[in-house]
């Protein structure tokens, strides 16, 4: 890994952290419940992208499985929250 790629990875992770910070501001501000669910779903997606970048950074395939799990858990969580907003119960 050259210094250039290492620098690019650090910059990308910083941009992701900024994106998560802005989304967290939306999550805390609202104003409605569906805004918060949308922001949480976005945070899940960006965290998953962060795992993929870390897989390149540490040359490891384990992060890939973590990213796949984050996609699936984020999906299940967002669907459960959306169903809850729709009817007041999850199933």
């Amino acid at each position: 890994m050259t210094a250039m790629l290492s620098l690019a990875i650090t910059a990308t992770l910083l941009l992701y952290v900024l994106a998560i910070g802005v989304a967290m501001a939306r999550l805390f501000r609202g104003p409605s419940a569906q805004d918060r669910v949308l922001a949480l779903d976005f945070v899940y997606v960006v965290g998953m992208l962060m795992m993929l970048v870390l897989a390149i950074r540490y040359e490891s395939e384990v992060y890939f499985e973590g990213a796949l799990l984050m996609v699936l858990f984020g999906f299940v969580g967002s669907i459960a929250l959306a169903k809850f907003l729709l009817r007041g119960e999850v199933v």
Partner: protein
Amino acid sequence: MPLFAEIVVALLLLASGVVALVAALGLWRLADFFQRMHAPALASTLAAWLVTFASIIHFSTRGEGLALHVWLIIIVLSITAPVTTIMLARAALFRRRLAGDALPPPLQPEDRA
């Protein structure tokens, strides 16, 4: 790993970071919830594709053959992201109508009368 591939990987990663930040700014700045729903799609499509291509190029140029397993992530994302969006849109529509808003607005202004 050749230098050319490394430059491509670095550019793809930086582009995905910028796209994710643009999506977050859209999530913050757009006015209405139904406008805000458009912004995160940028992260789950374009940013995810860019990172996937970067990852495939990086793990394929190590001399151990093609490494296409990261493709699975965007396949799963392209199945789950529209489902989440539709469920959230239905929930938002239901809640806004329950609160008394006339949604969706009429397509044409009714000025014929």
